[in-house]
């Protein structure tokens, strides 16, 4: 798209005039043509729109196949829509076959246009918010600091890498103890979630790996990992790192959003009023409680595949 079409942007936003206008793709062009007729999308005069659309297409004359083909696809859809509307409607359309503009998969142009329009409008509102936000000035931030904030949200690849590290160190450990018979300790994900929450102190930050200390089996490592993911999703804990690929830290999220408070209360109810933040020594790993089936079932959390306590069985 190298050529620009000059026209006056018309519409309700009179204080915001754009003189040159480069269309952002076929939907944008189509939307403009439709809005120029001041008609609803579903009422547009197809012949006129198609004509102007074709005129613009001829003017474009780019050799960029990607761009041209995307315009042509939409033009083809327009032609189909037009030809269909030229046919007389079926005298008695069958009940289940409603005369619907978007009844074929490749021909949902009207739907697409409506959806696009929604986000286009949203982007204008967002732009307005940005303009407002740019009217206020915080104390200046160091450029370097701005690019690498002290706390980064942990990216999924980093998280998986950390899990791999834990599993590898477990494998090394288990090789040393060759010939040892181990028993599976049944810990469910919801149970582990509660243990983690009570293990974490609000005023302290733990390393990701600390949560896995004392894990005796591979299953338990996975259960702990799933519990961490679930807690993060529920915003009960926060995981972050200082630099990309750096160590991952875990801390209790103490937000006061209503959702958070509700969860906190639910949690307290579940634990029978027991204090969730009892002081525990660091580094020994959270203590385990024997699994009780009613605990698992009464917990109002989405169930994961591994949330049933396993039968004890020798490996």
């Amino acid at each position, binding site marked *: 798209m190298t050529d620009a079409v000059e026209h006056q942007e018309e519409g309700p936003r009179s204080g915001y005039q754009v003189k040159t206008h480069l269309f952002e793709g076929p939907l*944008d062009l189509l939307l403009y043509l439709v809005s120029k007729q001041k008609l609803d999308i*579903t009422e547009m005069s197809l012949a006129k729109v198609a004509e102007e659309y074709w005129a613009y297409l001829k003017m474009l004359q780019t050799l960029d196949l990607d761009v041209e083909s995307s315009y042509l696809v939409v033009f083809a859809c327009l032609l189909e829509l037009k030809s269909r*509307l030229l046919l007389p409607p079926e005298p008695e359309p069958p009940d289940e076959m*409603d005369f619907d503009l978007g009844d074929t998969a490749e021909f949902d142009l009207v739907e*697409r246009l409506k959806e696009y329009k929604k*986000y286009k409008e949203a982007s204008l509102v967002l732009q307005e918010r940005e303009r407002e936000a740019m*009217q206020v000035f*915080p104390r200046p931030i160091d450029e370097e600091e701005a690019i690498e*904030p002290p706390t980064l949200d942990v990216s999924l690849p980093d998280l998986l890498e950390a899990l791999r590290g834990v599993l590898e160190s477990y494998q090394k450990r288990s090789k040393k103890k060759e010939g040892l018979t181990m028993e599976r300790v049944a810990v469910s994900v919801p149970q582990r979630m509660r243990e983690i929450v009570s293990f974490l102190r609000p005023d302290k930050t733990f390393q990701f790996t600390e949560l896995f200390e004392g894990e005796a089996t591979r299953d338990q490592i996975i259960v702990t990992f799933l519990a961490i993911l679930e807690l993060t999703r529920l915003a009960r804990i926060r995981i972050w790192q200082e630099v990309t690929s750096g160590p991952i830290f875990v801390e209790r999220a103490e937000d*006061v959003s209503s959702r958070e408070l509700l969860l906190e209360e639910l949690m307290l109810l579940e634990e029978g009023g027991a204090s969730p933040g009892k002081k525990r020594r660091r580094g020994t790993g959270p203590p385990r409680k024997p699994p009780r089936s009613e605990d698992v079932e009464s917990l109002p959390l989405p169930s994961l595949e591994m949330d049933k306590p396993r039968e004890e069985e020798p490996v």
Partner: protein
Amino acid sequence: MTTQSTTEAPPREHLAILEAILFSSTRPQPVDSLKTLTGWQSRYIEQAMNMLMDEYAERGIQIRMVANGWQMVTSPAVAPVVEKMHAQASRSALSRAAMETLAIIAYRQPVTRAQIEALRGVKVDHIIPQLFEKNFIRELGRAQAPGRPMLLGTTRHFLTHFGLKNLDDLPELPPDETLSDVNLQHRVADALDAAEHQAAEQLSFGD
């Protein structure tokens, strides 16, 4: 510092402490970090912050809630003058294409590049790296789809830059143009008439 009950109003010294923290930090302070610093309860901190915000209402500096935290900023009322001082700073606005793409990511996250392209009907290869560079978007993970495409979402910096408290604070999407079936049929019938009429006059478009 002892914990206060939420019934008694925070004393001046406590407001002074929060004020000092906000003044000396450049980025929004979330309630967690204020809790860690002061040892007070979240509700107490909120209450104190609201008092502080009220006190600042008429000043050249205000306290705003942004990106899940509190931050001191200059008041919008003084913007015309203060702006001049910051004119040099590159606070470039986004292009229209980038803005649309960012809006789609913000509202639809997690979203893949292909989904954005389907929505906009145009490629966004050149826009995504720009948004990454401006630290507005980040990878949320990979989709369970062929090629494991990247799932995109917005960053904390996005919230700060757009002055949003959190993602729920995004302006509401314009409502769907809801058309009942009956309504749609009427509209289609009208469009049909119009098309017929026009087609009679000018059947040839294109050469």
